[in-house]
């Protein structure tokens, strides 16, 4: 391969103070998506009305599902005298309208900056409702000036587990914290667990709540999601497997479960590609005491067969991957596995250790590879041009970049706003890698075919 261990990866400095076409979103969005993966949960964004509505619109455009997120709609008066009244009124109205099992509170820059003490409001609220049937309420601190949607996502998952998980009885089940992956990815993980006979609590699990069937009657809250009782039992599980740990700060919730309840903790890269998936399967094997089940072995075999069928079309091609840090690291490892070059690995989040993470997990040093954090789509244009990138892999917000550079885009991750089926895109496990590999190879072929002056009908 054309890879040498000569030059280290570069970390580019940003040249603009402003952010131009952001390659990140704000933290209440991530928290809202995580909350929607819990059974009968309504997210409540404590802030101005726009936060909830903008986030709903953004998320609906990807999932194409009704996504109800409530707002406490803090007004000017609230901004001056505190948003407590509106916050409590919102809790009341959500409980009345939706009869949820859980209300997941996410704060905003507004409520955090006016100094609203949500914890105290909740104590007051609970005291006032003592004796009445009330949903569980959890609270994540997610001001949009701190971190990105990924921090919000992890913060919400962490808040839910810390609020609900108990030591309880030991049981045979495992906890699986998949991170922010697609609905299809969740189904792939679930079915792999089932194939190993593992009973598994996936948190969050929005595979059904955000990708449901057509309904007979309108559902106030879509069915599916992680059951609250299962979250309570997480403290008694045999192990926690946490995927996509790159880019998370502080003590992870899996580490907390270990410290608090002695639940063994496995932390893995998002399992994209054969090697990363093998590692997850080894853990499943270890926990279940079973070898790789036939169905999964078949998927693995077909994936490898297809790698061979398609390898020439991608060998040595340079890709730019952008999005969340854990996503780009996993995809970079996958690209390396199939002979592509992860030439540009970029995230809008601040992740000073991105370069080190990539160096650690990649087998080869790719000369001139750009590992860039805290960047945006406008900056990426020049970076990709300079790197001579052949293909982009990431969410649909890279569309403009692809168009301006005249190179193809393989849509992956979140959001996909310009196609249907974003929630059904697969990335994880053998079948996810299969789908991703086919998409990348076919996109390269199609691009070449479209660029051919004479066209052709055989590969």
């Amino acid at each position, binding site marked *: 391969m054309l890879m040498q261990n000569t030059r280290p990866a570069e970390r580019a400095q940003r040249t603009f103070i402003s952010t131009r076409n*952001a390659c990140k979103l704000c933290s209440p969005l991530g928290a809202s998506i995580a909350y929607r993966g819990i059974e009968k949960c309504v997210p409540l964004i404590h802030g*101005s009305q726009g936060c909830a509505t903008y*986030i*709903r619109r953004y998320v*609906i455009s990807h999932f194409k599902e*009704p996504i109800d997120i409530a*707002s406490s709609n803090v007004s000017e008066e609230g901004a001056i005298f505190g948003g407590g009244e509106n916050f409590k009124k919102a809790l009341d109205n959500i409980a009345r309208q939706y009869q949820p099992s859980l209300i997941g509170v996410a704060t905003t820059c507004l409520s955090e900056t006016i100094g609203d003490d949500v914890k105290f409001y909740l104590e007051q609220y609970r005291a006032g409702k003592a004796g009445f049937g009330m949903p569980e309420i959890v609270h994540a601190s997610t001001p949009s*000036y701190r971190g*990105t949607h990924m921090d919000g996502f992890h913060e919400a998952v962490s808040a839910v587990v810390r609020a609900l998980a108990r030591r309880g009885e030991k049981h045979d089940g495992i906890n699986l914290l998949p991170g922010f992956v697609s609905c299809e990815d969740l189904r792939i993980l679930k079915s792999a667990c089932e194939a190993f006979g593992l009973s598994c609590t996936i948190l969050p699990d929005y595979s059904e709540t955000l990708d449901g069937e057509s309904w007979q009657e309108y559902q106030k809250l879509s069915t599916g999601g992680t059951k609250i009782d299962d979250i309570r039992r997480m403290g008694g599980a045999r192990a926690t497997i946490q995927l996509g740990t790159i880019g998370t700060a502080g003590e992870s919730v899996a580490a907390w479960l270990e410290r608090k309840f002695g639940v063994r903790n496995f932390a893995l890269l998002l399992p994209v590609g054969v090697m990363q998936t093998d590692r997850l399967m080894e853990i499943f094997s270890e926990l279940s005491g079973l070898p790789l089940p036939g169905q999964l072995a078949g998927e693995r075999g077909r994936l490898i067969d297809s790698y061979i069928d398609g390898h020439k079309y991608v060998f040595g091609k340079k890709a730019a991957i952008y999005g969340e840090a854990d996503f780009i690291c996993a995809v970079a490892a996958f690209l390396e596995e199939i002979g592509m070059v992860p030439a540009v690995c970029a995230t809008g989040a601040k992740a000073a250790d991105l370069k080190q993470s990539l160096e650690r997990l990649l087998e080869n040093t790719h000369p001139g590879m750009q590992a860039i954090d805290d960047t945006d789509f406008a900056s990426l244009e020049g970076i990709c041009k300079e790197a001579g990138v052949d293909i982009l892999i990431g969410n649909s917000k890279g569309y403009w970049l692809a168009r301006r550079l005249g190179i193809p885009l393989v849509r992956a991750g979140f959001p996909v706003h310009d196609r249907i089926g974003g929630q059904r895109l697969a990335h994880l496990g053998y079948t996810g890698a299969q789908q991703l590999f086919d998409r990348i190879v076919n996109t390269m072929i199609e691009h070449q075919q479209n660029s051919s002056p004479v066209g052709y009908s055989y590969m």
Partner: protein
Amino acid sequence: MIEILEGRKSQVMVKGGADETVACDKVSLAGSVSQRACVFCGSRVVLYPIADALHLVHGPVGCAAYTWDIRGALSSGPELHRMSFSTDLQEKEVIYGGEKKLYAALSELIEAYQPKAAFVYATCIIGLIGDDLQAVCKKVSAEKGIPVIPVHSEGFRGTKKDGYRAACEALFKLVGQDKGAREKPLGINILGDFNVAGETWMLKEYYRKMGVDVVSCITGDGRVDEISRAHTAKLNVVQCAGSMTHLAKMMERSFAVAFKRVSYFGLEDTAAALYDVAEFLGDADILERTKALVREEVSRIYPQIAAYRKDLSGKKAAIYVGGAFKAFSLVKALRHLGMETALVGSQTGSAEDYDYLKEICAEGTVIVDDANPLELARFIREKDVDLLIGGVKERPIAYKMGVAFCDHNHERKTALAGFEGMLNFCREVHASVMSPVWRFAPARIHRYKRQNPEGCDADAKYAAC
């Protein structure tokens, strides 16, 4: 059964019911899941199409990220409006103030993109940390020699309507800046059309054929220089009255530019709009040309609509849109297709708007202000509608209930204004209502069984459509 929240009941009414008033102009009820956004949203959507201006959102990254390329507002030239610029405030700036970062961001962006003007949007946090937006804008304006205009759009300071107002105030700072521009006795400004899918261009073409000068379009395919000489027009022709009437009134007061409210949705309203303009300008030739134009367009379009009416006649519709003016036109346009409106609502309608809706709708029509998803779902079910007209957030409600949907938001790629737009509208509605996919939708099958309780099980699936 979905209950209406106590605090929402006054904003829902049924025509012919006991109480026919709709409370409105209220802040959204906490926890109700309003479809409205915020003050910032109101300002952002109005100013968005000005293509040669820099639009810098001052605040944390979300507000800018969620409004990147948000409208299908086209430009015939520069496309700076399609980029998303944010000061991306971090915790440090929230504590120590964001003025320095704002100054640096504005300076570098004006240097890099050479815009004709800059709009600086204040988000929630700016109103809290006390950045002096005015002072920074003034300083940069003096240094760079272009208008740098603060938009007071802190999200929590009211509703989307207040955002429209803040946008109008910002626009008004540009109007009249071109001191040398000569008066245009037969000139108009197109206000409140945003050139979604090229609609402003269609309207301009009508006015060109009529012999009317279009001085400026505010803000569809908008340009800073054009807006600066908007005061030279005789008349402001205001569509989307909810957002633009405030600007029209300010211009009337300061520059004696008269204004007329119109709508370009549907044949009837488009024709009325063009006639209104022709009559106002009082030029016999223009009036003649307008008559010819309307005659030609209507005789071209009308027969084509008949085919759609055949399929759509008797179907029931629900409408939930941002501004009530659009709803008026839609009720009328649907009637041309033989469709009755069973539910109509808006995010920002006024008391007069709802009175007018009541006038034009049939008995039993539900009229609702600032509805939420559950209310919409309830009335769609109760009224057994066949079609919902709305935006992105309403679409999945319709689809989950097996109901057809027509996008009438600002992301759409199909022109729905003007004569040609009516034809596109018919096609859009027809394509969704007549699709064979509904026969598989459980809600449709269920509804069919509900309506035909006698022996329909075997073929319900196929009859449901």
